[in-house]
């Protein structure tokens, strides 16, 4: 009898526990809904607030690129808060982490639109940018892209270099060194696959031939098979289009297989992580990077001042150097601050301002010509870098 009573008690207890858990869960679900609606109604304060959405991969595989971007957003918000408002207008940066998941980016985009943002900067990856682009176009909100995209939509402002722009310094290098036969290697991801078509076009114009093409999985940890295949074709240079860590692994395999030809890497390799990966094995490796990485080695110019201003600001806060991906976010925020300074606070006004009033804008990544907003920055912000003593080295052109 006692045993039965005890059992009944435990069953009861269990039922209560599960009930509590269920109520807890539903409460949470309710909270989620409320949270979103609350923030959407909060813009009627006495101080005018301009909300700017930023969609970045803070976590997930693309966080290697998103990391400095997140830092930049936090840095800029801190600076904006310290300055107080701009002409009585407060700029609020609403950052959303999409966890390297396109569906989550679309949800984030909807969330931002619900919160009444005047413009959106994002996303870290090319494919994700394509996923949120239709939403931005539909909602008539200016989208400032920070990854290379190809689109013909209005309302989109490319802040990242197009593949053609990134490739032009490489082709210049090849022409200068009279290299006619090259091999091409790329990662099989959204960044990796966009390089070759652009290169082929420019190469054709300059009489350069692609004698071998190999692809590797973006998460692969050994590329010797592909490199061995490339050796058979006997190229005079190797071009690699991949993000890190893939980019660094290729470089290491390249060395261990005893290649002596120059290797040229993309902007995605122009970061600290890459230098750490190739430590000590950096001869013959060239990387197309932002002049930001070598700002102190540049000849005196306005551009040098501009780059140093951003670099020092960032380095002071985080003790590390910003990369090109951070620069894109920085440029986007600066452009929108310009708009707010000119008194433009709605999506429509900002669009008109960007389209008609800015014209040429000296951005950190390179000069932007906003009369052709889809072209992206010019190549004047890029250069072919070398590595010397584990530091980026600027080469006089």
């Amino acid at each position, binding site marked *: 009898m006692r045993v039965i009573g005890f059992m009944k008690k435990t069953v009861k207890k*269990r*039922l209560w*526990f*599960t*009930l509590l*858990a*269920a109520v807890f*869960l539903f409460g*949470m*679900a309710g*909270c*989620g*809904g409320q*949270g*979103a*609606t609350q923030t*959407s109604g909060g813009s009627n304060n006495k101080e005018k607030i301009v909300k700017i959405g930023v969609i970045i991969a*803070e*976590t*997930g595989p693309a966080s290697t690129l998103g990391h400095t971007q997140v830092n930049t957003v936090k840095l800029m918000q801190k600076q904006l808060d310290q300055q107080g408002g701009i002409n009585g207008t407060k700029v609020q940066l609403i*950052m959303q*982490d999409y*966890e*390297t*998941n*396109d*569906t989550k980016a*679309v*949800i984030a985009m*909807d*969330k931002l*639109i*619900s919160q009444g943002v005047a413009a959106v900067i994002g996303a870290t990856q*090319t*494919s994700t940018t*394509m*996923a949120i*682009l*239709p939403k931005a176009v*539909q909602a008539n909100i200016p989208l400032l892209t920070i990854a290379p995209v190809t689109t013909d939509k209005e309302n989109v402002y490319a802040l990242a270099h197009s593949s053609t722009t990134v490739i032009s310094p490489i082709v210049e290098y090849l022409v200068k060194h009279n290299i006619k036969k090259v091999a091409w290697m790329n990662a*099989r*991801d*959204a960044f*990796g*696959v*966009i390089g070759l078509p652009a290169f082929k076009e420019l190469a054709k114009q300059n009489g350069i031939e692609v004698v071998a093409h190999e692809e590797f999985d*973006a998460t692969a940890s050994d590329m010797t098979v592909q490199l061995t295949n490339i050796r058979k074709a006997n190229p005079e240079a190797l071009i690699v289009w991949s993000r890190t860590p893939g980019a660094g692994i290729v470089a290491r395999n390249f060395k261990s297989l005893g290649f002596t030809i120059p290797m040229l890497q993309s902007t995605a390799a122009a970061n600290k992580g890459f230098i750490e990966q190739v430590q000590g094995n950096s001869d013959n490796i060239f990387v197309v990077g932002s002049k930001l990485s070598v700002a102190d080695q540049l000849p005196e110019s306005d551009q040098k001042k501009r780059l140093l201003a951003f670099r020092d600001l960032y380095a002071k806060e985080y003790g590390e150097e910003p990369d090109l991906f951070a620069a894109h976010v920085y440029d986007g925020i600066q452009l929108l601050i310009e708009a707010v300074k000119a008194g433009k606070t709605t999506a429509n006004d900002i669009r008109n301002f960007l389209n008609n009033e800015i014209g040429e804008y000296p951005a950190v990544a390179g000069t932007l010509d906003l009369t052709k907003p889809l072209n992206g920055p010019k190549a004047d912000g890029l250069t072919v870098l070398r590595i010397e003593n584990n530091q980026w080295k600027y080469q006089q052109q």
Partner: protein
Amino acid sequence: MRRFNGVLHGQLWRPLLVLAAIVLLLPWFIPTPYIFTILILIGIYSLITIGLSLLLGYAGQISLGHAAFFGIGAYVSGILTAKYAISPWLAMVIGVIVTWVISYAVGMAILRLKGHFLALATMAVNIIFYILILGLDEWTGGASGLVGIPGLSLFQLNLGQPLYFYFFVWSIVLVVIVFSTNIVRSSIGRVLRSIHDSEIATEMLGVNVAKYKVAIFSLSAVYASLAGSLYAHFISFIAPPSFYITFSILLLVMVMVGGVHSIWGAVLGTAIIMFLNEWIRYIGQTYFQISGQVEIVVYGFIIIVVMMFMPKGLVDVFERLWRKIASARIKEVEKRKIAAERGDLA
């Protein structure tokens, strides 16, 4: 009328009516497109989890590869509409047929396996599909994804509008629920449950077990394919990472949390996991200043709690609660009866 009664057997109309009422009433309380997007995604994912519930809960076969079937639907719809300008509805039907054929062929081969081996084989199917959509970039757009998938429209009604799309998706979910609960109640459902309990015993009864297993596997794949087509038209862009194993696992988590043994559990679990995701993010950002994939930790915790205390899922808690209320009511009625009889006697 009798046939209608047959379809809405027993008390099915009750929960169905509740769900329909919730679906109809929710838009009045939700002003933001953000919540609409989540509700639509819950509807779309529910289609897959209902199928998984049939497969896992009733037939007892696991699948870690349903993201692949979701992907086949999405890519067939996407490619046919974006590249060949075929009507989205026709593309959806083609997607379903293609998925059915593929899943039938795959199912015949891998459903001979049991337990861990079946899980691994379905996982392999998912990986193969992932590599294929990456590699066949002429059609699928490869890693850059497939752009320009048009929205749906139904009799001049633009389903690109979140509200219309929401009603559209959820009416499909309701139909699928009615269909699935009827399968469960039919002789097929009984065979499936007996396979779940003992495959050998079922075979001894002279039932062609393989046929039933493959059929239910294909049906759940077809549901996933339908969901994939809807997803493609809703998001209007698809890329390979959305169809990786991680998504298959998330779907399983949804089914587990809701309750494997019930169609309703699948819908409940999907809704809870989706809202939980947003809620954890909101709380994490506003109160703890943390961002990132905190929900993964919370998912883990929830699965442990559910497995320990509610092995039949959350839906079981509701069912028990309902039964308790019902039995209390019956007792009340009986008491009154007894009291009345006594009164008569007196």
